[in-house]
């Protein structure tokens, strides 16, 4: 070895370095990828934020659930594809016995890692009940859950205090439905509370091999997993908070699947990076213009209706989203129970009718404020609405602020700002059940998340009823009526449900997503080469 080193002179070193560098560059491969090219099938993806917890009973954001899906089993799981549905996962059988009881029977042989044994009904009971015992913020997902009764090692009955139909889409196939090991969690936390970023055992196809905050999360195959084999040996997840950075990371080849911004969609479609497929998925979001019904300037329903009718939604969709999103017909997104075919106020509005309402209200020189967050598109929407309302003589002043401050502008607990709130743009995410959308607009939420201060006994009554109806068609009727009530109040102008465009490298991956474009990494497969 010493001889070799002594024989390398400066010229040889430079020649060698140049040859190596030239080879790497000519091959078009980033240096890091050359040096650290991993063995086996590796999926490289991005998360929009850093993980804060991997405890499914205390999750804070949907992207955390994308990772949890790889680490733990659930009774059921969302079906990949373009229509909402669920499949069995850890459950061999599951049925609604009566409105307040769901019986499940677990598959045998699904093991926890670390020698914590097989998943039993006792672990399911522990996983659900700890959420309530420790007053997790995620309790609402399980609605009126009461307890789990054990019948034998593999069979149990989930008991609710009152009928709660949303559990089939909000909890069982989602975060709070994940099963953790009672023994492992008790050993790790002593009281069964939140274990944060230190999962003590895994029950899914992958285990958490490494996590470096703000750098990466590495998942590797769970050697004790006995279920269907996942497509990739490793999943490397990088937190990228800025969606534009994620797009550049994809273009540079650092990740193989990415959600892109709607304003980049046209560019990706017209000039896609090599071997790239662009897919457009619907979204569960709802973006709307809200009006504070308690504000003196907006107390008169005629003023609110004038605003509703003056707004041309397709114009907003074209200008703010280049036409890549739908025109919303209500708060509930397409594809879900309760989605309305059309809104009561036509999407294009009617300026003559808007002026009529304004005349009825007998107001002139109306000056209003319109608040929104500064995250980009909401402020563009606000400017379009400003221009549209000027056509009926309403002057609008747009106020933008950081998302953190804006998030509480209508809340009574955060000072008196809610009293000055007039018009505002809300951009809320949701889960695939209509109850998730409607919970915001009940009377109990006035001054909390119901910034319109919309208050309807009928709406609240329907909201309770709709949670208990199993027949989707009957349930849908109630949600249609609820959205009609909202729209008739004049306090809402539904704009769009958004869209989720994703890109992936066809030479590396065959992705699988929920209908709203959320990735289901466990179902991702390597590309056929």
């Amino acid at each position, binding site marked *: 070895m010493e001889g070799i080193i002594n024989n390398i002179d400066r010229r040889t070193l430079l020649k060698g370095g140049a040859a190596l560098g030239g080879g790497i560059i000519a091959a078009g491969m*980033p240096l*890091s990828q050359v040096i*650290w090219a991993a063995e086996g099938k590796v999926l490289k993806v991005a998360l929009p*934020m850093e993980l*804060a917890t991997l405890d499914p009973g205390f999750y804070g954001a949907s992207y955390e659930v994308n990772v949890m899906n790889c680490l733990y089993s659930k009774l059921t799981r969302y079906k990949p594809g373009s229509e909402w549905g669920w499949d069995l996962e850890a459950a061999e059988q599951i049925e609604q016995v009566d409105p307040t009881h769901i019986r499940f029977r677990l598959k045998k042989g699904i093991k926890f890692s670390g020698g914590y044994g097989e998943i039993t009904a006792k672990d399911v009971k522990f996983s659900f009940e700890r959420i309530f015992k420790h007053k997790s*913020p995620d309790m609402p997902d399980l609605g009126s859950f009461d307890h789990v009764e054990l019948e034998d090692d593999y069979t149990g009955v989930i008991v609710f205090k009152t009928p709660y139909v949303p559990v089939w889409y909000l909890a069982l196939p989602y975060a709070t439905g994940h099963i953790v090991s009672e023994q492992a969690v008790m050993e790790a936390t002593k009281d069964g509370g939140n274990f944060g970023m230190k999962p003590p055992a895994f029950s899914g196809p992958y285990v958490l091999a490494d996590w470096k905050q703000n*750098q990466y999360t590495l998942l590797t195959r769970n050697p004790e997993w006995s279920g269907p084999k996942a497509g990739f040996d490793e999943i490397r997840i990088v937190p990228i908070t800025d969606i534009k950075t994620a797009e550049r990371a994809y273009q540079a080849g*650092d990740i193989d699947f990415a959600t892109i911004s709607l304003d980049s969609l046209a560019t990706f479609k017209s000039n896609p990076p090599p071997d790239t497929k662009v897919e457009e998925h619907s979204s569960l979001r709802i973006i709307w213009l809200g009006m504070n019904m308690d504000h003196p300037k907006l107390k008169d329903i005629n003023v609110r209706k004038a605003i509703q009718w003056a707004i041309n939604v397709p114009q907003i969709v074209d200008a703010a989203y280049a036409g890549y999103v739908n025109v919303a017909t209500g708060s509930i997104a397409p594809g879900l129970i309760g989605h309305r075919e059309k809104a009561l106020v036509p999407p294009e509005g009617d300026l003559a009718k808007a002026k009529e309402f304004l005349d009825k209200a007998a107001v002139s020189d109306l000056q209003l404020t319109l608040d929104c967050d500064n995250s980009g598109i909401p402020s563009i929407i606000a400017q379009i609405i400003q221009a549209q309302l000027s056509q009926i003589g309403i002057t609008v002043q747009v106020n933008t602020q950081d998302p953190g401050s804006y*998030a509480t502008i209508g809340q009574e607990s955060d000072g008196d700002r809610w009293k000055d709130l007039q018009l505002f743009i809300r951009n809320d995410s949701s889960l695939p059940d209509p109850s998730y959308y409607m919970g915001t607009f009940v009377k109990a939420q006035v001054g909390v*998340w119901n910034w319109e201060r919309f208050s309807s006994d009928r709406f609240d009554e329907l909201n309770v009823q709709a949670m208990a109806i199993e027949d989707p068609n009957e349930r849908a009727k109630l949600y249609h009526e609820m959205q009609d009530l909202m729209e008739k109040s004049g306090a809402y102008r539904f704009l769009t449900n958004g869209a989720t465009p994703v890109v992936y490298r066809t030479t590396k991956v065959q992705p699988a997503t929920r209908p709203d474009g959320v990735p289901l990494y466990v179902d991702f497969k390597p590309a056929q080469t």
Partner: protein
Amino acid sequence: MLLYLCKRLVLAVTISVTAVTLLFLMIHAVPGDIASILLGPRATPEMKAQLYQQMGLDKPLVVQLATFFGGLLHGDLGFDVFSQRPVADIVLEQLPYTLELILASILWAAAIAIPLGCYSAVRRNSAMDHIVGVMAVSTIAIPSFVMAVYALLIFAVSLRWLPAIGAGEGFADELIHLLLPSFAVGVGWVGYIARLLRASMLETLGENHIRTVRAFGVSEWRVITRYALPLAILPTVTILGVGIAWLLSAAVFVEVVFARPGIGALIVQAVNSRNYPIVMGTVLVTTFLIVIATTVSDLVNAALDPRIREEL
């Protein structure tokens, strides 16, 4: 020297306490409720109350501040209830990434600016001097994040020579991941340092002792490197120390653009989510870092110039 170090230590503590207290008051004056932001639309008042209690936000401001400083005496920066980890662990994990970014940026800036500044001074009023002058002002005018975006688009996206995101794994990989971000931060300093060094060199080259050295027939290269540069570089060293604050703020943008771990990325996330313990812990550490950097630059100055050493 010992007395000087003690004075600087007291100053460091005073500045850090003042900065953190001001920040604490500002955080609580800004609208935006952490419980509402983090727990979302379905959070009940009970859940919010529980979160306030877990984070100690249910106590009066004075008590919260006293608890924070009390914890500091034991090396405890608080606890992040979301990740269930001590804030000190989180901040100290991220700190090395920012430090290496700053250090590499300084190296970039010094490596480019010092030769340019010297050359401009030696070839005063030449065409090259004018070109360097224009380039210097240009690099000052371009913000770091703009430089970062373009560097990324050219070298990572178009040419695919370098990685676009992350900090890498292992020494060689980390070094490669550091090239673009540190260049983006460092290049903004090239103009400042080159102009400062040029002016300083011109002044030094006109001094009597340099004329004397030249009269002895010492080569021009030796005059510049051995006699003029060590003196002319003193203001630059001071600026580099003070400039750590500037580099830290530039690092915030660059860490977001390159999705790099670090103090900047951490603070952006924490401010957006109103995660007060992380914000406080991070600012405390960065404040302390800046005070240490200025102290080190004073000590380096003293090492280079005996006159300053005597004053200390």
